[in-house]
């Protein structure tokens, strides 16, 4: 499948925004001609040899360009890597995700890996920016020219707690002195699957990899002996196997402890839940390098006893694993759905379940192309035992008091001024009140967690499902169904906004019932003909519904024709996806335009003497102007990022 026009435009824009227009020119040329050896590339791009050499080298470093050297003609062919280009827009989300899960320092490590494309660990060790827990420079920019004296970064200083309070500046020096746990952070990132080992195959396009794997598979002696249908099947399977083996750079396996990745923050019994969202809300003012985070990191790096003293192999080359990060981002969307109409405690239980599932899910789906709605089967996650959720969930999370009693009538009479849940469930469950011992406590907690998840299993959520096994209940989620739910949610939001509630009802009726004529549609949707027709007409103009004519006779007269309305979610999704790409491009182009409008002013703010000293060199008016520009760019980028959320839903999940 070739890149659509708008996706290609968007990728080129993103590259230009991040790396300048030389890269963009090379990328666009490669996108247009698909696959070119250097001389052809030079010819089409009208760049000099030198520009191309340097450009290509840097772009390969960032995985923006695939290359493939043919054994037949010895030529090296270059091709664009639109996936890597597109994911440039997701960098903010990725870094934020890592920050909320593993803290500020891990986010800095992640950002550095993104900044370098791929990097061997030994190089990371040399970076002054990663040497200490607090960021090195106020503006965080790295100067990597001078590798200073070698220090053992993996040697962990695990003292914590001295510098927990106070403003950033006051303790800056003290913090700066503290060597950062680079290796344990890398292990945490690797065991989460957020970073992977770079493989040769990562530099070749998926098509080239497939062809090579296919060749390798068909050259195998055991395959060669097969014939006919068996051959095709075995070959296909073997090819997939080889392909997976060659591209899989997973590092998590050896690093997991009891099924949990390293660096997971333990729920410490201090009453605060450290679920990403919560502790993030508690520190409003600290955007970078606040001490609370540092504290956390030390906590977790400390308690993997002994293990962390083994540093990671310095020659290991790392890169970011977008596939896995998409899994985490997708789960975040699932949690969001839960938050929309369930109690916060329920959503948190769900998040805990999903986190466990994330650890064992490598990618969002196995097929690279977007599956067609009617043809896709369900794909369930690994089922998770309730006791694991019990142990993971914040022990201070109040699980009771979130649900009404099973029997409201008796509850109002028999009210003990206690959690309403208890009154109702007393009958079918054997826990009494607070005076149980810890074993009972665990049992009751498991019971409560099951209650929360059962609620989520029920309509309208349908977010999880249980499997009953001999050894108890396990919980899992159906990825395809939930991804579909997300897709329809995004579509419906658009329809609601553009055509109103009425249209939403019509669309759902058509989706549930298939093709319908107007009369039947009216009977179900209970809408006046006038409204119905208007809605259908405007939705048809907008491409959301289609009309099929079924003539009753050969004359095809309109009076003797049945008109059937229908809604084709696949077609609509792919067209909305294109529109989304286009909206992203136009918004980015607008940002560029707005920046050019302010070019003189912004150039001034970027002057080496002004930058970082804005307060000193800029007038009050200028400072305000700068702030306004930053706000404007932020909201525009924010909107682009929300559009990217939709792309993820329609394309990646």
């Amino acid at each position, binding site marked *: 499948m070739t890149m659509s026009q708008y996706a290609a435009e968007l990728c080129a824009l993103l590259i230009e925004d991040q790396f300048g*227009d030389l*890269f963009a020119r090379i990328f666009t040329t490669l996108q247009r001609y698909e696959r070119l050896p250097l001389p052809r590339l030079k010819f089409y791009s009208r760049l000099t040899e030198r520009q191309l050499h340097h450009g290509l080298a840097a772009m390969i470093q960032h995985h923006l360009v695939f290359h493939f050297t043919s054994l037949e003609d010895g030529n090296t062919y270059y091709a664009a890597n639109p996936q890597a280009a597109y994911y440039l827009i997701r960098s903010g989300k990725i870094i*934020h995700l890592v920050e909320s899960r593993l803290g500020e320092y891990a986010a800095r490590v992640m950002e550095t890996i993104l900044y370098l494309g791929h990097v061997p660990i030994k190089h990371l060790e040399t970076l002054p920016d990663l040497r200490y827990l607090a960021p090195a420079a106020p503006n965080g920019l790295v100067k990597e020219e001078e590798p200073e004296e070698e220090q053992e970064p993996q040697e962990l200083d695990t003292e914590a707690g001295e510098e927990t309070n106070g403003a950033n500046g006051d303790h800056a020096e003290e913090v700066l002195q503290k060597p950062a746990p680079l290796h344990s952070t890398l292990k945490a990132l690797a065991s989460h699957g957020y970073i992977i080992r770079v493989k040769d195959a990562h530099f070749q*396009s998926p098509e080239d990899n497939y062809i090579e794997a296919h060749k390798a598979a068909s050259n195998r002696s055991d395959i060669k002996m097969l014939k006919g249908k068996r051959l095709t099947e075995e070959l296909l399977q073997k090819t997939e196997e080889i392909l997976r083996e060659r591209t899989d750079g997973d590092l998590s396996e050896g690093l997991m402890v009891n099924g949990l990745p390293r660096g997971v923050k333990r729920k410490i019994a201090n009453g605060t839940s450290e679920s990403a969202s919560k502790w993030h809300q508690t520190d409003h003012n600290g955007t970078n390098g606040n001490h609370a985070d540092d504290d956390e990191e030390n906590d977790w790096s400390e308690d993997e006893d002994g293990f962390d003293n083994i540093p990671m192999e310095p020659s290991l080359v790392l890169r970011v694993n977008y596939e896995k990060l998409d899994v985490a981002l997708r789960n975040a969307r699932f949690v969001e759905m839960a938050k929309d109409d369930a109690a916060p405690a329920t959503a948190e239980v769900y998040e805990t379940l999903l986190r466990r599932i994330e650890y064992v899910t490598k990618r969002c789906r196995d097929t690279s192309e977007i599956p067609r709605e009617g043809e896709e089967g369900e794909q369930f996650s690994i089922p998770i035992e309730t006791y694991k959720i019990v142990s993971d969930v914040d022990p201070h999370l109040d699980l009771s008091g979130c649900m009404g009693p099973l029997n409201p009538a008796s509850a109002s009479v028999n009210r003990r001024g206690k959690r309403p849940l208890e009154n109702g469930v007393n009958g079918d469950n054997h826990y009494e009140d607070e005076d149980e011992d810890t074993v009972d406590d665990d049992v009751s907690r498991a019971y409560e967690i099951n209650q929360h998840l059962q609620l989520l299993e029920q309509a309208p959520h349908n977010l999880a499902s249980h499997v009953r096994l001999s050894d108890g209940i396990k919980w899992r989620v159906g990825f395809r169904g939930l991804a579909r739910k997300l897709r329809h949610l995004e579509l419906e939001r658009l329809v609601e906004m553009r055509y109103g509630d009425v249209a939403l009802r019509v669309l759902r009726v058509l989706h549930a019932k298939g093709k319908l004529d107007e009369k039947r549609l009216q009977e179900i949707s209970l809408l006046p003909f006038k409204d119905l027709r208007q809605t259908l007409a405007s939705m048809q103009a907008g491409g959301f519904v289609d009309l099929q004519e079924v003539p009753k006779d050969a004359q095809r007269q309109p009076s003797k024709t049945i008109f059937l309305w229908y809604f084709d979610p696949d077609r609509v999704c792919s067209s909305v996806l294109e529109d989304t790409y286009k909206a992203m491009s136009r918004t980015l182009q607008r940002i560029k335009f707005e920046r050019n409008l302010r070019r003189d002013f912004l150039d001034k703010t970027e002057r080496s003497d002004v930058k970082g000293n804005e307060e000193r060199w800029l007038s009050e008016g200028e400072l305000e102007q700068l702030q306004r520009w930053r706000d404007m760019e932020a909201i525009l980028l924010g909107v682009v990022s929300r559009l990217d959320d939709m792309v993820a839903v329609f394309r990646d999940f």
Partner: protein
Amino acid sequence: MSRFGAKKGNRAPGAEFTWDADPGGVPDTAPTPLYPAYVVPWARKLSEKEQSEVNHYRHLRERFHEGPYYSVLDTSSSSAKKGSAARANFDPFHGMPSYSGRYQKKRRTLPKIANIGREYETRYFPRELWPTIMPNFRPNASIDGFHAQTALAGMKRGFEDDEDEEDDTAKRRTAGADEDEGEGDADEGELLEGDEEAEEEIVDDDFEDDEDDMGGDYNAEQYFDGGDDEFGDDGFGDGGGGGDEDTY
């Protein structure tokens, strides 16, 4: 609307002709506005999370901008060759060097590859780029038992004469589309001119190195020079080069 209406309407013969199919209606003779009335949507304020994401994005972007790879094709400056396209595009308000200009952010025109404190994982790069990423690369040395098959002919076609290179390009360009020729020239002019920037000079140093040690990895080009029939044929017929945007 009006034109079609006039044809269809069953007006009595001899009735006064009018373009107005719908008397009393708003005449649609006015040009359609470029931007029809559109109630723009409102957007939610950025949440704390989103603001943080945007900040991270901008921070990384800034690192890229400050980093060694960010490079632009055209920086109109007064140092461009006289008579060249760049000169014609010279912006007298911004192009003139000024005192404060020394603080002005410099735009690279070529990614800085070597001597930036990074070591490249050579094995991940195609051979023909090795001289670029490794200034000390000796193409004649055999690596992994693989002797550079390229070190035979075309040795002379190195970087040493970019002028020729350029002519060449120009010639070929005339064969193809040529509307952007001027621009292309400007770019290359820029490059050849070199910048007075110290960092550029460092690059030039590498470049000198390249020149000396340049392997003849350009016979590939010669290979293709005669072979216009190779156009667009990558020899694999996979038809899907780079088309993996849906991969994940």
